[in-house]
């Protein structure tokens, strides 16, 4: 089984990596642009999941066509991203862009705590789940091993779409350019007519949507429990840092590295599974202190 176990591990790794990427990419985006390491990203992820699940369960319970749960996932994510993300940015983050980044970080941490608590108050502590989409897509099998099509086909596809869409947005649209400009120097950007406030808002909402989307797409594969956000956020931190900040493609690659390494660990030495992401991060940063694709900062003197 030596050869095909490698293939299996690869498949598992890719499936896992896709989800990881979907979550981490939003984080990377927000950091790359707003320079804020958004810890609340974790709660957005969790809440996205809960909302999607609730929506899906409701659809199923009221006898709608189960295939509707797919759009429900995306709908849930978008709602959370726009409403919650939007509110956060407008009411809170906007006041702190000028402040020291440590303060910004802490604000998001505070938000994280608040949302964790609210989330418990709203959805309680019983594990939630909504696996309809997973069941609908059924299984595919390799070497006589069953995989859920949702995990090995749908998720990777979604990840790839997101990757290229985002790439295009940042590289080839005016909005993308404005985003990059504002990040570097708000005043200078304003002085050439860029509406920094709007750019920040947009970016944060987009990032938030991705966080929520990650959660929503994770819903069918897992049970939603309190504290799921906390676990995910560290992982996506690891991905973001390994990638180099604001590096969309980097995030994809490091997600793959981590996902696959983790899978192999499960096969070869399960004890390493948990620390794999961190080992990888340390190794990468050892060789490239600014992450895989991290840029050296502009000339100073």
């Amino acid at each position, binding site marked *: *089984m030596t050869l095909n*176990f490698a293939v*299996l*591990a690869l*498949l*598992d*790794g890719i*499936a*896992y990596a896709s*989800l990881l990427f979907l979550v981490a990419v939003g984080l990377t985006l927000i950091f790359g642009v707003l320079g804020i390491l958004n810890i609340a990203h974790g709660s957005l992820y969790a809440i996205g999941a809960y909302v999607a699940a609730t929506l899906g369960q409701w659809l199923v319970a009221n006898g709608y066509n189960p295939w509707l749960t797919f759009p429900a996932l995306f709908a849930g994510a978008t709602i959370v991203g726009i409403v919650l993300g939007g509110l956060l940015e407008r009411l809170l983050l906007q006041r702190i862009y000028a402040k020291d980044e440590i303060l910004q970080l802490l604000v998001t941490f505070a938000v994280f705590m608040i949302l964790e*608590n609210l989330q*418990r108050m709203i959805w*309680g*502590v*019983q*594990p939630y*789940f909504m*696996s309809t989409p*997973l*069941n609908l897509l059924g*299984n595919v099998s390799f*070497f*006589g*091993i*069953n*995989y*859920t099509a949702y*995990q090995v086909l749908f998720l990777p596809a979604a990840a790839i779409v997101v990757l290229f869409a985002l790439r295009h947005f940042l590289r080839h649209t005016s909005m993308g350019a404005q985003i990059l400009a504002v990040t570097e120097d708000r005043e200078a950007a304003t002085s050439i007519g860029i509406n920094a406030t709007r750019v920040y808002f947009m970016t944060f909402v987009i990032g938030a949507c991705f966080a929520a989307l990650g959660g929503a797409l*994770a819903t069918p*594969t*897992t*049970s*939603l*429990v*309190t*504290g*799921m956000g906390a*676990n*995910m956020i560290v992982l996506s931190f690891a991905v973001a840092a390994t990638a180099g900040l604001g590096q969309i493609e980097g995030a994809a690659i490091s997600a793959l590295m981590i996902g696959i390494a*983790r*899978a192999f660990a*499960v*096969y070869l030495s*399960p*004890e390493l*599974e*948990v620390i794999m992401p961190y080992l990888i991060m340390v190794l990468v940063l050892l060789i490239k202190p600014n992450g895989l694709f991290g840029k050296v900062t502009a000339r100073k003197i």
Partner: protein
Amino acid sequence: ADKPAELKIGITTYSSGSASVFGVPARHAAEILAEEINAKGGVNGVPLKLYFIDEGAGLETLMTEYRRLVEDEGVEVTFASISSGVCNKMAPLAEDLEVVNFMWDCGTQRILEDDKYDYVFRTQANATPEVLAPLAYLLKANPDFKTIAVVNQDYAWGRDSWEIFSNALKIQRPDVKVVAELFPAFGAADFSTEVSRLQALKPDVILSTSWGGDLDTFVRQAKQRGLFETSKFVLPLAESSLQRLGDDLPEGVIVGARGDHYFLHPEMRDKEKFKTFNEKFKARTGEYPIYSAAHMVQAFAALEAVYDKAIKANGGEWPTKEQVAEAMVGLEFQGLGRPLVIREDGQAVEAQLVGTTAKRDGYNFKVIDKMELYDGKDLMAPVGENSLKWIAKFKPDFLSKVPSTSFSHK
């Protein structure tokens, strides 16, 4: 001592964090019981007052609150706790503060085996019988298995339970090969890799002592990918997930309940107390009680029993905490299951219920069939003996011969 205005009870339980799947139902149970008792005038005329502490809030808070309750609020008895880690801490603290403490739900057998306590008691079994019973059941139900794999949460319970299980298995069935020992992170959201590997290994038996969201996720992913068709599952804590998992938990899975806890307990289901509690609980939470609720009921049963006993012993006078502590030893009490008794090491002897899942009309989730009820004492290390050492002395056919009474779903 003279009667207090109210009998204050401090209860540590999870209201945040993943373990609140046990904590919250238990808390509901506690509140139901307190109401009941107070409705009939309290314990020997003294009404109960409950104080809850969230185990999820971290040890500092837990300790501060605990001390405050005992030293400032004047709490007389404490129930601590769900997590073995917290038990480890609270036991010595209770001993220090000289307050009677019931370990009402935590599993680890070490505490009372390693140290001697005057004020710390456990009103339920410990990990040893809770893990040996399912093994005994497995050995009897389908003896001819050659390979086994374990998927446990990566924390003390997951490790300890496997240590007990595997040690016993080694002696009972030296021929059985352990093909994989997987310990995914506590609270892991995804087990697909584990599932793939298990599919590749095709072990005859898959054991998992996981609980809560972890267990649910694992079962769903395994079910979806047809792992249940190729392997026999043994899930010693699955009783607490039955209602959540619904049809995602297939038939023919061996499930346990950390004691003889089951809302259709074959010996108790017709008893008045049992029925009324179940109804009240269902009315309050919309669900049937799970084992953590039952453990809470036992703690309260012990509480009432011990005060009656101590008051009698004290000639009708309200007892001092020393007298209460004394009365605990040899105390007999009954919760929702078979009667229990506290041994001189403070450990209760609790029966164990194991069975196999089955689909029956009237329930939109799997019920337990082919039940075996084991008497606690047979599966428990004698007083003063260390569980692992005791297990090491098993005869090869010990477990398959352990007496038990069989029931099937009615």
